[in-house]
């Protein structure tokens, strides 16, 4: 038996091998067992790729540990490969000496040739550098379920439980969670309950009997604080945030979206969780989606849309309308690799400048970004709160990686949710003085005057407004004052933002600062460098416009500032121009999260040079 602080394991196979199921079961079991867990599904690149080919390989990665894990892990300590194609597609990520569990029954000549091997990779010591466990899974699974009357497809389906059983043994996972799942799922199909249970246990025993001499691994439990916990994906966190915001504001939620991946998952989720007061509609395009949301906001509801880069580009027109008509709405951009349709299933953070500036005219709005999958919940609540308080559109920049990956989350109780009561404008006084739709409160926000309210009738829209009255005005000085007013209103949000916090030394050689989904990689890489004795700190921005007030002061506390981003240096250029500091960009554009080593290497280069 060997002890480990954390393990990253990837399950890889054909679409029919059920890897997402295996990954999800391994995740739930590990989390319930008491580990912190981050996960990342790796769906096949093509929707219907031929079986046994590289484009058809689907994977699911689970990183679990006894200390806090912030990323789904990069180099793997274990790989489960169900066929030659999945071995070929994933082996380069397995660490030397890593555990390699393969379904040896799938390694016939026809299959390894399809994967592009010229010889059987399991023979002739080709896998010598790894701890190879070759299991004839097809055969053992068939034997395990032989006594149950099943169709051949059902027999095949059971195989994933066998693989799961083997993996459970190697990492001392209990079977209870999966057994309960099997009972729930196959409640109407008792033969499948029996078969799945048998093959799961057979897989587990296989580990015990055949591999015992080599031993298994132990990953201790994390010291979690008390409370109720669950595993949550970025998409689910965003969806729950929206539902919580609707409940806390007591407003109807109108969610309109055009199903561009990965934003389509949020649409599906809200449809599935049909809630009273929540109207979900598939719009004819992204432009319509934001207009639907904005129309709903005009009507006093919470108008929200979710999209991805090309959709945000279409929406820039309507964002301008939302800014000038000063109505609250929320746009969630799940960024993917661009430009244009780019790489639809790959992640990137290259919409930052589009979110900050991609509109005609002087058109400031609030931009936020969640740091982790679960942070989507808090960031959506914050987006809704700010949108309403400041009567402005808010863009939330999440991304494909955050949407799909998952982490352990402490479930908040309803009492812990922020108070967000909203009052729409009501007529004041005796009604003799005309209503002023562009009068401002202490936050410089105009009243949210909702159709249906007698005495507040007014007309808003996309033409420049006269101060206070909101009448159309082309007066030059009025325009200058209105541009300044809209800018001041958004800049003023900074007054209430929590100050940026720093991990590590408050002064020193290097600050590594990031935003969005790079949080986990930056945090872990800087922690590792500090443990090697380097004077490096990290900081993470969740508010990108406006920036917290202390950002400039913090940046000046370090000799150098490094900005790792999955774009060509967009935040870096923002920081350079806002604070006149010589920030250094670390850019990666491969549709993948940063490798820790990429960031560590750059830190070492900068600190040691």
């Amino acid at each position, binding site marked *: 038996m060997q002890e480990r602080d954390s393990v990253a394991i990837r399950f890889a196979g054909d679409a029919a091998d059920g890897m997402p199921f295996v990954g999800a079961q391994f995740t*739930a079991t590990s989390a*319930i067992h*008491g580990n912190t867990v981050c996960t990342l599904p790796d769906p096949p690149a093509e929707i219907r790729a031929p079986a046994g080919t590289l484009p058809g390989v689907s994977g699911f990665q689970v990183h679990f540990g006894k200390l806090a894990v912030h990323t789904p892990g990069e180099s793997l300590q274990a790989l489960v490969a169900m066929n030659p194609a999945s071995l070929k597609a994933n082996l380069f990520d397995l660490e030397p000496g890593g555990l390699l569990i393969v379904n040896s029954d799938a390694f016939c000549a026809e299959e390894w040739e399809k994967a592009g091997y010229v010889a059987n990779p399991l023979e002739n010591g080709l896998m010598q550098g790894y701890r190879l466990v070759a299991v004839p899974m097809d055969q053992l699974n068939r034997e395990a379920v032989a006594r149950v009357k099943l169709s051949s497809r059902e027999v095949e389906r059971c195989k994933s439980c066998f693989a799961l059983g083997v993996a459970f043994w190697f990492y001392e996972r209990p079977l209870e*969670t999966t057994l309960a799942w099997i009972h729930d799922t196959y409640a109407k199909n008792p033969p499948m309950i029996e078969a799945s249970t048998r093959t799961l246990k057979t897989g587990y025993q296989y580990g015990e009997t055949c591999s015992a001499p080599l031993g298994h691994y132990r990953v201790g439990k994390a010291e*979690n*604080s*008390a*409370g*109720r*916990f*669950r*595993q949550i994906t970025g998409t*689910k966190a965003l969806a*729950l945030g929206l*539902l*919580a915001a609707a*409940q806390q504001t007591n407003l*109807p939620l*109108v969610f309109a979206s055009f199903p561009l991946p990965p934003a389509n998952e949020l649409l599906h989720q809200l449809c599935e*969780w*049909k*809630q*009273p007061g*929540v*109207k979900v*509609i598939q719009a*004819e395009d992204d*432009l*319509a989606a934001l*207009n*639907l*949301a*904005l*129309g*709903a*906001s*005009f*009507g*006093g*509801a919470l*108008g929200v849309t979710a999209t991805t880069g090309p959709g945000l580009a279409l929406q820039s*027109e*309507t964002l301008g*309308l939302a800014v000038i008509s000063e109505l609250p709405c929320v746009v969630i951009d799940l960024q993917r690799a661009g430009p244009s349709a780019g790489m639809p299933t790959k992640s990137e953070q290259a919409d930052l400048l589009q979110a900050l500036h991609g509109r005609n005219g002087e058109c400031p709005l609030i931009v936020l970004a969640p740091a982790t999958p679960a942070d989507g919940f808090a960031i959506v609540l914050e987006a809704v709160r700010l949108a309403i308080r400041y009567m402005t559109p808010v863009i939330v920049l999440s991304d494909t990686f955050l949407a799909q990956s998952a982490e352990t989350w402490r*479930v*908040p109780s*309803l009492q812990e949710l922020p108070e967000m009561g909203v009052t729409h404008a009501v007529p004041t006084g005796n009604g003799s003085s005309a209503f002023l739709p562009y009068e401002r409160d202490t936050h410089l926000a105009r009243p949210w005057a*909702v*159709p*249906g*309210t*007698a005495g*507040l*009738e*007014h*007309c*808003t*829209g*996309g033409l420049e407004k006269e101060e206070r009255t909101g009448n*159309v005005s082309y007066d030059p000085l009025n325009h200058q004052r209105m541009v300044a007013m809209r800018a001041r209103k958004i800049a003023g949000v900074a007054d209430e933002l929590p100050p940026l916090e720093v991990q590590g030394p408050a002064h020193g050689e290097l600050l590594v600062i990031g935003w969005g989904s790079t949080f986990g990689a930056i945090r872990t890489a800087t922690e590792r460098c500090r443990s090697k004795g380097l004077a490096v700190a990290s900081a993470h921005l969740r508010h990108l416009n406006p920036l917290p007030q202390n950002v400039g002061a913090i940046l000046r506390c370090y000799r150098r500032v490094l900005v790792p981003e999955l774009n060509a240096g967009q935040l870096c250029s923002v920081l350079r121009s806002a604070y006149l500091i010589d920030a250094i960009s670390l850019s990666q554009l491969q549709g993948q999260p940063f490798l820790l080593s990429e960031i560590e290497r750059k830190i070492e280069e900068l600190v040691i040079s």
Partner: protein
Amino acid sequence: MSTNVLPLLTPSDLTSDREVRWCPGCGDFSILSQLKKVLAVLGVPRENLVFISGLGCAGRLPYYLSTYGFHGSYGRAPALATGLKLANPDLQVWVVTGDGDALSAGAGHLIHALRRNVDLKILLFNNEVFGLTKGQTSPTARAGTCTKSTPEGSVEASLRPLSIALAAEATFVARTIDVDVNHMSEVLEKAAAHRGSAFVEIYQNCKIFNDGVFDYATDATIKADTVIYLEHGRPLLFGKDRNQGLRLNGFEPEVVTLGHGIRIDDVLIHDEKASEPTLAFLLSRLIGPQFPECLGVFRSVQRPTHAELLDESFRLGDPARKLESLLAGDESWVVA
């Protein structure tokens, strides 16, 4: 419209204090004033009336009413209005659009509002030209029309707004004309009373860039021969002596003169309630000078509105899945 409801408002109650900026002689003035008369007697409180528009001359209309209004972006008014109805189905929402706004930039949004049967009153002011951008061709400009952007005459086929509305499954489709104020009132009242998407094309004269394009339909000396006033259940007759009619020859319409063996029974009967919009579509295709053009209600049928169907589906939702249980998810665990 019911006449036993006391008018709540007068047209002047619906007038905003903003200066009307259309060109003198523009057909929009007439539409605005008829609209106010109709609105005043609807019995809908002023605060529940909302006008949503896009860009162009027609798009200015909401500013001239004292109701709620939202002057949106080019072509997007149907989407804005759909969102508003989702937020509050109790409002009476009107969309004011022009031929450029509705059919250049906004065609996609228009057809989706119609097919959803959102309870909107959509008025398309068709002047067959771009006015506010100073006189370019429009998607409804007839082939050959000379404009600043088509000095040699437009070479593109023109769209017929009513044909598009019918193809988009609109449940109420009508046409009227700016100067025929009584007819316009009648059509607007029917549109207001319709439950679901009501689409009204209003022939509107642009005094500046397309003056007189609808003279054939307004000139008292000829209009009897160029216009058919649609009446539900009545034969499609026109002409000073009402002796001309439309009949079908195979799938083709043709104009016939009664007598000489052609009897009134040969003439098509208008049926705005027909379950299929085939006849309405055929009528929407008729243009002069070969054919008379139809004014009135082409189609008026009932089907559930967007809001009704959505409410239905929300009722079918799972109220047992409260936020608290969604937060906890299916697999949560407790650390003591």
